[in-house]
């Protein structure tokens, strides 16, 4: 190992850990290390995504350029978008959340450290899957939103889309895991006194953001499994020639894709809301409005996706409603911008690097926000959609706002993570390189777009003005690259020889600054009393503390005795995410089957027999409830009996489904026969998989019970949790049974 490498090791590992440093980081379940691993992983992919972007800019630097082939160019923009969103911004957002949430709420660690490690490791796994296809020259080449039918086998016969699809599924599962962990941590792990009303804004927004992840990512997962089934099993969800619907793909994708924008931006808002007050030496202006407007953004973002689809031709009613609701988002975001500005007003502003990036964020976000609203104006959107005007818009949000906020966060929290300050001189140099580079690259793209340059074109003719504007954009992109290199250099140099930071170098007010830098493994030796939103201010200014916020307890903390159980909370969050997944599959089923498909329809199903097996499944909900009651009374024998009965009933149901499948297949029906069989097998198949997973869990619980594990006081939470899952699977079957079996028989009589 070389010299600086060893120095870095000394900086981040204590002697005992240096002995087996590989394991110390590979096997860690510590939220701080996982947070740093997230950030490092994201940095690696940032370099990859950045190089892809630079290659594209080089290709576009001059008209009629042939640096890269058209196909390569398509792969580049697909990989750039996918990488930056799923492998850079989301890991960074989750990484900072991982590092900071437990510290900001005064907790020892996340609620589920091992789930946390699992979620993290899915990111490199997914990232490698995604890049594997590119490295063998078969990268996906259909854009990050993979519009159908371009994403289907006839148009993308190579394996790239399949790798892309599976990789996003893997990453999506990791994100849902992280969201469950964040929600449970915030609800169940807060220190005494840290009520939800007193949460630092970064934690509050990451908390709300996790609900958005739970709502949005499963929708994407549903779309991805449908696409994968299309590609691997020759079905036609999204292939128009066979009756499938490319528009359905767009709806489902954007039902995920629009909230995704906010999944990336809400934590960035949280970071800004932490940094601006500290460097203005004032509490945030209107905490409740900043916090409340986040709730509004969260809800609105779930219901406005169709504004990505004005050019589809959805009809005037859709356009009008979605234009109006999209414009409404301007209100809560505007409230936030005004609150941040009002925080600056009459503050004693310190222009350190984090603050500089925040100020640039404000300007860029205002620009990106206003061009965003302009896209809600339908006729304008028809003109500018898929032009460089749109590219400029979303880069003002994604780079100028989100990435700038993340860089601000890096400079702000680096001293806490490493114990050393970052160089201000290099920080300011990087800031100016980034600001000039960013605005040079993207400001001019607004005009290119208005001049008619479409996005995703690998080259362009020598039209008046296009050449020099593209050249300006390309040259500026390299300024940004230089800025990024300076930031990375600053990190390395500061890690090795930065000024020692001390506990609270910025004189900030939230709890992460109440411990050493870097924090010890257990995070805190002792916590200051928490009565307001700025406990460190109260600690430093006992003569003029902030006003006490709200009651001392909110009934949600475990410590207060009446709190929610963390296992239950996590299971509930998991069930919510599964609801989104099944909800999407059920709506897709209705979409294709409300009007009967040509070929077999639901009339071929045996309703009577299925009702019998359904009763078995529903009865198993009763038996597992009895099983829990038996455990509650401490009667292990009865518990084992009811559990066995539950498993038997579940197996009977699965056997019934097997009979159904056997009959259908015996009659020559395959998943690809028509859209009825496709949607039927997909929906009931995924339900069946869930039943089988439930049965496996029940069998594990049965094994544990027979081994005597449930004689412990209090008994393990496993049975109660499997029970929640099992009830959920039953409820899903009520819906599936209604939609797939009962409704088609009566739809003509309703």
């Amino acid at each position, binding site marked *: 190992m070389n010299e600086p490498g060893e120095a870095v090791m000394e900086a981040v590992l204590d002697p005992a850990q240096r002995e087996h440093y590989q394991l110390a980081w590979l096997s860690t379940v510590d939220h701080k290390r996982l947070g740093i691993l997230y950030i490092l992983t994201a940095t690696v992919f940032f370099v990859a995504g950045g190089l892809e972007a630079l290659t594209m800019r080089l290709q576009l630097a001059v008209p009629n350029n042939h640096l890269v082939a058209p196909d390569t160019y398509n792969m580049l923009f697909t990989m750039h978008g996918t990488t930056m969103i799923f492998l850079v911004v989301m890991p960074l957002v989750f990484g900072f959340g991982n590092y900071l949430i437990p510290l900001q709420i005064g907790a020892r660690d996340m609620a589920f450290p091992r789930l946390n490690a699992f979620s993290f490791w899915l990111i490199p796994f997914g990232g490698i899957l995604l890049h594997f296809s590119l490295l063998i020259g078969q990268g996906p080449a259909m854009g990050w939103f993979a519009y159908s039918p371009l994403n289907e086998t006839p148009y993308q016969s190579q394996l790239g889309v399949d790798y892309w699809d599976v990789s996003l599924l893997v990453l999506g599962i990791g994100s849902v895991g992280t969201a469950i962990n964040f929600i449970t941590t915030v609800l169940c792990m807060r220190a005494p006194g840290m009520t939800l009303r007193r949460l630092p804004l970064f934690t509050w927004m990451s908390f709300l953001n996790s609900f958005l992840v739970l709502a949005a990512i499963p929708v994407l997962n549903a779309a991805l499994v449908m696409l994968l089934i299309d590609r691997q099993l020759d079905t036609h969800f999204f292939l128009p020639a066979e009756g499938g619907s490319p528009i359905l793909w767009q709806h489902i994708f954007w039902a995920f894709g629009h909230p995704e924008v906010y999944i990336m931006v809400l934590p960035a808002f949280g970071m800004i809301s932490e940094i601006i007050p500290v460097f203005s030496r004032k509490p945030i202006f209107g905490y409740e409005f900043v916090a409340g407007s986040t709730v*509004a953004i969260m809800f609105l973002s779930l219901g406005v996706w169709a504004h990505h689809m004005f050019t589809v031709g959805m009809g005037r009613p859709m356009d009008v409603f979605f234009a109006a609701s999209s414009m409404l988002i301007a209100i809560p975001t505007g409230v936030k911008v005004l609150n941040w500005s009002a925080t600056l007003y009459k503050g004693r502003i310190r222009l350190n690097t984090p603050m500089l990036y925040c100020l640039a964020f404000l300007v860029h976000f205002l620009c990106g926000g206003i061009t965003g609203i302009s896209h809600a104006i339908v006729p304008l959107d028809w003109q500018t959609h898929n032009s460089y005007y749109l590219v400029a818009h979303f880069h003002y949000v994604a780079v100028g706002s989100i990435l700038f906020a993340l860089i601000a966060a890096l400079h702000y929290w680096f001293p806490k993570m490493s114990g050393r300050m970052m160089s201000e001189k290099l920080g300011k140099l990087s800031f100016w390189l980034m600001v000039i580079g960013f605005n040079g690259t993207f400001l001019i793209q607004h005009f290119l777009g208005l001049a008619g340059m479409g996005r995703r074109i690998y080259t362009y003719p020598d039209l008046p003005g296009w050449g020099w504007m593209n050249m300006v954009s390309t040259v500026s992109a390299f300024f940004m690259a230089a800025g990024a290199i300076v930031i990375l250099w600053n990190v390395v140099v500061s890690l090795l020889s930065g000024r020692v930071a001390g506990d609270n170098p910025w004189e900030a007010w939230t709890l992460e600054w109440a411990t050493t830098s870097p924090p010890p493994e257990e995070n805190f030796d002792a916590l200051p009393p928490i009565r307001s939103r700025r406990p460190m201010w109260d600690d430093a200014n006992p003569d003029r503390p902030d006003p006490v916020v709200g009651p001392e307890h909110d009934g949600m903390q475990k410590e207060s005795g009446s709190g929610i159980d963390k296992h239950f909370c996590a299971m509930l969050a998991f069930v919510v995410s599964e609801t989104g997944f099944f909800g999407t599959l059920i709506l897709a089923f209705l979409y294709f089957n409300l009007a009967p498909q040509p070929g077999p329809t639901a009339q071929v199903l045996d309703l009577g027999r299925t009702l019998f097996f359904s009763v078995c499944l529903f009865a198993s909900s009763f038996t597992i409830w009895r099983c829990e009651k038996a455990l509650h009374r401490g009667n292990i024998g009865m518990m084992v009996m009811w559990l066995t009965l539950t498993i038997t009933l579940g197996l009977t149901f699965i056997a019934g489904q097997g009979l159904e499948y056997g009959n259908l297949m015996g009659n020559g029906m395959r998943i690809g026969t028509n859209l009825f069989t496709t949607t039927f097998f997909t929906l009931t198949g995924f339900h069946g998989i869930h039943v089988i997973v439930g049965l496996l869990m029940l069998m594990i619980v049965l094994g544990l019970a027979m081994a005597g594990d449930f004689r412990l006081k209090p008994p393990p939470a496993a049975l109660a949790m499997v029970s929640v899952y099992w009830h959920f699977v039953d409820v899903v079957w009520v819906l599936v049974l209604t939609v797939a079996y009962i409704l088609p028989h009566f739809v003509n009589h309703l």
Partner: protein
Amino acid sequence: MNTTQFLTSQWVLSPVALACAGVGLFVYFRRFGWNPGAWWLIAAAGVGLVTLMSPLGALAEGYLFSAHMLQHILLLLAVPGLAMMAIPAGTRTPRGVARVLHPAFCWGCGVGAMWIWHVPVLCDAAAASHAVSAVQTVSLLAMGAAFWWQLLAPREAERIAPLQGVVYLATACAACTALGIIFTFSPITVCKAYVHPVDRLGIEAMLYGTWGMNAARDQQVGGLLMWVPMCLVYLGAIFGQLARWYGAPAEPSTAHA
């Protein structure tokens, strides 16, 4: 008939609706006397009467599914909500009533009203028969009142906790979004009564010509009304819950500490 003529001429006096509003106001003033909250009830009565007696009512009666949807939203959300706000704080709810109003029941009322009355058979029946339509109106008002009771009960202690209120409203929003999405994209007609209206007022040319309506678009607007504006009402109520939550005072014991 053109649009102006239609909007000015189609106001009908419904004695039953007027009598109900009158009785409601009379009972209110007998019980509580004049107080500033009465304006809420007057607003509720006003919205209710406009919903039933204005051109909106005429359109909802056999012409437009979307008008009928708007009527539903007003009767379910606006009228009972406004009326509930009129009751002075601290008024006791009769014990029997309070016992029935479990949060799950109230949620089921608020959400179920929309699902039940849009089962095609019932939707058509309501469009065809005045009696069914009257039952529908009353049930919407009652179910709406049950839904809002959890959030607006006159005594704070009887209300749902603010954060649970957020979940209550968010899930209601999700449920009506799901139904709205189904209506918006459904290839089948929800209410056949609206597909070929009997043109008793002579406004078909206006609707299908000037207004650019057709049966498919009509159902789409109806679905979208349920999907977007209805959820905005819930979102507004969510803000009410957040304001209640953030507004909760600090406990005296901690204030002295």
